[in-house]
C-alpha cells in the first residue's frame, strides 16, 4: 500500500512537473497565443495544419489554447478581461459577436474584407470571417426518398419526416434554427413550432448527440449543415446522406477571428489575421472543419463539396439583433414547445 502510494505520488509529481514545464514557453521566438475551440485545434480539426503552415512563415510559435466550445471561449475571455494572455481569438460566431464586441476586448482588424467569398456582404471592422456554412436538415436518402423542398412543405406535412434538433439554450445550431425561422416567418414563428412539435423526436444538448442519434436511425432528419454530407462522401465514401435545400433560403453560421486589444504581440496577431484569409489557411478549412472557406482556395473546393446543394437565399441575422432578440425567441420557442 505504501509502495503503491509513493509510486502514485511520483507519477503525479511527474505529471505536474511536465504540465508546469510545458506551460512555460521558449523565450527566444515570440509565441502567439490563439484562443479557439476544441474541435478546431484538436487532432481532427485544421489546427495542426494551420499551425505548421503559419510557423513556417512567421518565425514564431503558435500556441493553441482550446476550450470546449465557442460559448466557453467567450465566457473565459470575459472572465480574464484585459489581463488575458490571448493574442487572437478564433472561433466565435456571429451570434456571439455582439457580446464579444461589447466586452471591449477586441481591436480593429484593418484588413480588406471586401473580396471574401461569402454569399452576403461583410462589413464589420473588428472581426474577420474565416469560415461559414448554411444550416440545413440532413437526411438519409436511402430512407427518405422525397425530402421536403421548402420550409413550408416541412411544416405543413403532418406525416412528414421526424426531426431531431438541438436546444437553442445550449447549442449554436439550435439557436441558428430559431433565427432561421424568425427570418422566414417573422411573427408567425410560434405557429411554426406548434406545427413542428409532434414530429420533433428529441431536442439534444449538443450537435454530437443529435447527429449521432440521427446516424443511428432515430429520426428522418437532423439539424446540421449543408456541408455535413461532405464528410461522409470524402472520408467514408458514403453518398446516401444529403442536405435538404429549402426554396425560402437558409440561415448561415459565420465563424470569425479577432485581435485582442491588450495583446503584447499586436503585429504578430495582425500577421495571423492576414494569414487567416490567405490561401495557406483557407485551403485547410473544407476538409478540416467541414465548412465553406471564407475565401475560396486557389485549388477550388474538394470533390466532396461538389454536389452539396446551394440555397437560393442566405440569411444572416445581424449580431446586435441576435443579442436583443435572443431571450424573446427562446421564451417563445419554450412556450410553444411546452403546449
Amino acid at each position, binding site marked *: 500500500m505504501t509502495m503503491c502510494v509513493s509510486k502514485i505520488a511520483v507519477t503525479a509529481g511527474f505529471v505536474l512537473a511536465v504540465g508546469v514545464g510545458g506551460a512555460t514557453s521558449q523565450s527566444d521566438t515570440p509565441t502567439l497565443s490563439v484562443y479557439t475551440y476544441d474541435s478546431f485545434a484538436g487532432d481532427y480539426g485544421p489546427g495542426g495544419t494551420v499551425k505548421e503552415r503559419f510557423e513556417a512563415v512567421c518565425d514564431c510559435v503558435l500556441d493553441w489554447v482550446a476550450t470546449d466550445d465557442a460559448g466557453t471561449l467567450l465566457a473565459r475571455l470575459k472572465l480574464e478581461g484585459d489581463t488575458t494572455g490571448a493574442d487572437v481569438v478564433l472561433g466565435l460566431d456571429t451570434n456571439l459577436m455582439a457580446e464579444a464586441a461589447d466586452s471591449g476586448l477586441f481591436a480593429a482588424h484593418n484588413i480588406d474584407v471586401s473580396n471574401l467569398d461569402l454569399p452576403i456582404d461583410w462589413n464589420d471592422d473588428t472581426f474577420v470571417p474565416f469560415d461559414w456554412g448554411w444550416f440545413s436538415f440532413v437526411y438519409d436518402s436511402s430512407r427518405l426518398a422525397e425530402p421536403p423542398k421548402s420550409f413550408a412543405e416541412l411544416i405543413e406535412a403532418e406525416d412528414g419526416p421526424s426531426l431531431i434538433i438541438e436546444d437553442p439554450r445550449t447549442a449554436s445550431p439550435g439557436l441558428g434554427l430559431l433565427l432561421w425561422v424568425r427570418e422566414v416567418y417573422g411573427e408567425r414563428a410560434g405557429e411554426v413550432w406548434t406545427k413542428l412539435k409532434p414530429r420533433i423526436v*428529441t431536442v439534444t444538448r449538443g450537435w*454530437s448527440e443529435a447527429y449521432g442519434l440521427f446516424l443511428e436511425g432515430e429520426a428522418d432528419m437532423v439539424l446540421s449543415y449543408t456541408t455535413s454530407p461532405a464528410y461522409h462522401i470524402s472520408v467514408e465514401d458514403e453518398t446516401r446522406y444529403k442536405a435538404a435545400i429549402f426554396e425560402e433560403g437558409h440561415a448561415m453560421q459565420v465563424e470569425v477571428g479577432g485581435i485582442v486589444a491588450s495583446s503584447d504581440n499586436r503585429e504578430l496577431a495582425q500577421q495571423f489575421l492576414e494569414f487567416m484569409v490567405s490561401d495557406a489557411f483557407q485551403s485547410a478549412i473544407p476538409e478540416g472543419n467541414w465548412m465553406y472557406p471564407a475565401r475560396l482556395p486557389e485549388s477550388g473546393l474538394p470533390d466532396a463539396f461538389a454536389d452539396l446543394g446551394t440555397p437560393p437565399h442566405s440569411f444572416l441575422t445581424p449580431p446586435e439583433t441576435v443579442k436583443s432578440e435572443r431571450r424573446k425567441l427562446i421564451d417563445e420557442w419554450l412556450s410553444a*414547445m411546452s403546449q
Partner: protein
Amino acid sequence: MSRVPGIVALGLLAAIVGLALVGLAIAGGSPDIGGSWTYIRRLIILSLGQAALSTILSLTLGGALALSLARRTQFPGRRALIAAMNVAAVLPAIVAVFAIVAVFGRAGWFGGIAGALGFDFGSWLFGLSGILIAHVFFNAPIAARTFLAGLNSVTPEYWRLAAHLGMKPITIFRLIDRPVLAREAPGVAGLIFLLCFTSFAVVLALGGGPDAATLEVAIFEALRFEAEFRRAAILAILQIGICVALLVPIMALGRRPSETAASGIMQDRTDRSAALWRIADPLVLLFGGAFIVIPLAAIVTKGLADAGSLFEPRVLQALVTSIAIGLPAGLIGTAMALALASLSRHLRVGEGRSRSANAVGMAAILILVVSPMALSAGLFVVLRPLINPFAVAIPLIILVNALMALPFAYRQVEPPLLLSAERYGRLADSLGITGLARARLVDWPLLKRPLIVALAVATALSFGDLGVAAFFSSGDLITLPVLLHQRLGAYRMGEAASVSLLLSLLVLCLFLAAQRWSGDWIAHAR
C-alpha cells in the same frame, strides 16, 4: 479515528464550494434571472417530479436485485453481473445515452424485433420513459450495491435465531431484510435523488423536448451562452438550497435499529430453498440483470466495429492521462470520504448528536449539486489573480474529480463504519481498545471490502469525468472522455464508440481487480 481529518475534509469542501460561488458572484454580469421566475419554477417542479420518480424506481429495482443476489450466492456469471452493474453506474452520460438508444430506440434492437413482429412503437423512448430508463440504469446498481452490502452484514445471530425458530421466508423478509433496506434507503435515496435532479445530458438527449430540462440547463446557458456569471451563481445557490431543503427530511427518515454484537460464529441465510424465492429470484436476476447488461453489450458491439481506431498513439496517451488523473483523484476522494464518515460516526455514536451527523452526511453528497461548470468557472476567477490557471490545471482537476467522487465513496464506507461502532463499540470500549488497534481490529474487517469498492468507484468516476476542465484546460490535457468528445464532434461516431468501449473495459478491469483484491465480498459476510 479522530475527528480532525473529518473536520479538515469538511473545511476543504466548504472552502472550495464557497470560493467558487464567490468567484462567480464577483465575476460580473447581471444578477437578474433573465427569462422569468415562471420558467425557473417550472424547471424546478419538473426536475423534482422526474427525480422523485427515478429515485423510487431505482430503489425498487436495486432492492429487488440486492435481495436476489443475497439469496443466490452461487450461480454462473454472478461476479460478471455485479461487475457489470458497477460499470453501468459510472459510465459517462453520453455513452449510456447512446447505449440505451441502441437497445430501446426506434432503430435499436428492441425496435428491430418489434418491427419484425409487426409492431411500430415509434419514438416512445424520448420522453419521461427514456429519462427514467436511463436514470434507473445508472442508479439501480448504486442502490443494489448499498443494499447488498447491508444485507450481507446482518449479524449471524439473526440467522441462527431464524433457523431455531423455523422462520418462514416472508417473516425473514419482514424481520431481517426489510429493516436493513429501511436503514440504508434514506442515505442512498438522497444520493440518487441529487444525481437525478442535476442530471443534464441524459435529460436533454432522452427527454424529447425542452420541458424535460433541469436547473442545470439554466446554469449552463448562463455560463456558456450569455457569460452571465452572477446569474449562474444565483441559480447554483438556488439549486443547493432546494436540495438541502429536500435532503433534510429524507436523511431524517433514517432510523437506526439497535445492533447486537456478533459472536463471530458463521451462519448462513436460511431462506434460500424457499419455493417463492426459487421462482422469484431467477426472474428478478434475469430481467433486472438484462436491463443493465444489454445496453453494455450494445457498447461492445458498436465499439468493436471501429476497434481499429484504438491503435493510435493518441488513444494510448488519453488512456495514460486518464489513469494518471483518475488514480490520485480516487485515492484522495476515498480518503476524504473515510475522514468524513468517521467524523459523522463520532458525532452520532460517540456524542449522540445525530442531527450533526446527518449534516455531515449531507455535506458529503451535496457537492453533486454544485454544477461542475459553475465550480470550474468560479475557481477560475478566484485563482487567476494568484496563479496561472493552466499551470494548476492538473492538480485542480484531480482535486475537483476527487470531490465529485467523494459522495459515492462516502456512501460505501459510512454504513460499515457506523455498523462496526454500533455493534462492537461498547465491547471495544470495555476492553479498552482505542486508536490504531481499534481501527485495525474492530473497523477494518467490516470496512475492508467496502473500502476497496469505494476506491474502485471513486477512481472509475474520475476516469470518466469531464465537466471540470472547462475553464482550466488549454486543450492539451487529453483524457479518454475528452478524446470521446473530440471524435463525436468531428463526425467520427464509430471511432467515438470504440473509445466508449475502451473506457468501459478499463472500468470493468478496475472493478474485477477490486473484487479479486478484496476477496469475493458478496458471498459470505465474513
